[in-house]
């Protein structure tokens, strides 16, 4: 048995766009234990619900994270609408689904790029982001924002997308899908990519469940749980099923995301085919009272919003359990026994979003 050393990883590390710190307890090249230390980006956002009124909070909620932005505001609004027993127009529900899926594609493409960068495949990183830019253009054309959409509000959405814009967006998406297919092929077939990910960071099915993993981290270990199964918004009217892979390694988590991008393209097409005309928002009646947990599927996994109102304009308690927060314990588990040089790739495959985790 070799001598134990502790290697600090982060808060500034080339593969991490965001600061998180891990103390890696090493025995030669093997990681024995990983101990996280967080708090670099804690903004105390939940507490702000006591100062901002519940409608303003939708925009604060969107800024929990700039990558999962839209779904954060959507989840918050859904939670408030449940308290208010507010039925929002069908068209708004469809638009929310379209924007959610767009944001899932954008997030997964971003992840693919960062992962390619983590294993040193620079050109693949650039290509993933090149395709992502075209998607951001579509997001901007339909919602007005690039990464922070600012389009979701309590009672519906703030702007409509006219038929012509939607038609053009669908055309552009089809072209984009063809371009993406090439990149996806490299990720799933290239030997050097496989070598960095196959059999690395294995999370067995039982551990994934016991440690509370969510999202692609859970589905990569063969558990078919996807919060969209709860049929919020109009997911119940669309034809889809959770995507799973069995291996539980880095490659499996990557494949889940690759296939989910195709699924999102399909969901956008389905939603755009079924959307009907009508208003996109209703008036908000009164203040929220009661408590409710809203659960949605972020690109990174299940997210939970707890809201508790007492009939005033400020919420008594607002809490978000973000997917990265739930994926931290599984991450510590899969880091045990890995090699030091695999740490960056393993950390990235849970798609850590630190600003989400710390809020």
């Amino acid at each position, binding site marked *: 048995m070799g001598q134990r050393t502790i290697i600090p990883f982060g808060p500034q590390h080339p593969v991490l*766009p965001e600061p998180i710190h891990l103390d890696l307890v090493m025995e030669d090249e093997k990681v024995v234990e990983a101990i996280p230390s967080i708090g670099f980006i804690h*903004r*105390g956002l939940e507490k702000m619900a006591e100062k901002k009124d519940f409608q303003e909070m939708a925009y604060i909620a969107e800024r929990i994270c700039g990558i999962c932005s839209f779904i954060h505001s959507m989840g918050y609004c859904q939670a408030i609408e449940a308290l208010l027993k507010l039925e929002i127009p069908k068209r708004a529900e469809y638009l929310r689904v379209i924007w959610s899926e767009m944001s899932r594609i954008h997030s997964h493409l971003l992840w693919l790029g960062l992962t390619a960068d983590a294993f040193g495949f620079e050109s693949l990183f650039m290509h993933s982001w090149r395709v992502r830019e075209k998607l951001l253009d579509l997001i901007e054309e339909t919602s007005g924002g690039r990464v922070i959409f600012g389009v979701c509000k309590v009672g519906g959405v703030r702007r409509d997308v006219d038929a012509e814009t939607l038609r053009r967006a669908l055309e552009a998406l089809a072209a984009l899908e063809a371009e993406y297919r090439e990149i996806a092929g490299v990720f799933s077939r290239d030997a050097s990519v496989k070598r960095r990910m196959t059999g690395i960071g294995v999370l067995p099915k039982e551990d994934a469940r016991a440690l509370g993993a969510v999202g692609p981290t859970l589905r990569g270990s063969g558990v078919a749980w996807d919060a969209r199964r709860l049929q919020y918004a109009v997911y119940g009217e669309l034809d889809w099923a959770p995507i799973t892979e069995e291996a539980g390694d880095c490659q499996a988590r990557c494949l889940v995301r690759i296939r989910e991008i195709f699924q999102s393209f399909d969901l956008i097409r389905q939603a755009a085919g079924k959307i009907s005309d009508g208003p996109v928002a209703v008036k908000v009646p009164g203040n929220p009272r009661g408590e409710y947990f809203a659960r949605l599927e972020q690109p990174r996994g299940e997210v939970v919003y707890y809201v508790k109102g007492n009939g005033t304009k400020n919420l008594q308690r607002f809490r978000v359990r973000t997917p990265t927060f739930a994926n931290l314990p599984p991450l510590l588990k899969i880091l045990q026994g890995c090699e030091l040089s695999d740490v960056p790739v393993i950390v990235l495959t849970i798609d850590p979003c630190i600003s989400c985790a710390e809020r």
Partner: protein
Amino acid sequence: MAFFKKSPWLLHYDASSCNGCDIEVLACLTPIYDVERFGIVNTGNPKHADILLITGAVNVQNEEIVRNLYGQMPDPKVVVAAGACAMSGGVFQDSYNVLGGIDKVIPVDVYVPGCAVRPEAIIDGVVQSLAILERKAAELKRRGGSGEPEKPS
């Protein structure tokens, strides 16, 4: 000192950003925006950097890190605060864990607005900072400065 303008090196630090501005900074480095065509290189080492680009507001935990990064950069140097949070704390300025904009800790030369800040705006802000960098370089030369880091006040 024209070489500054031709190849400024940039250090990006995420203070307590929501990520929105960070990914837009990254977008500047990738195709479509591609700042490398202007000779701008993203470096991870503060001692190599001419421009410090910060996103997000400062809090007690990263205050020291920001001061430290700035202190390690050689003169002349400029600081670009990108995004609403880096300028003033943005939507989070009321929060108990947020101190405020970057200028609470170090002097800022260029403020770039936006929530999230747009890549075009970031590029514009960096280009504006280059003019300031040139001016600072000329000033340093006139004083016969050595480029030693300033003592943080």
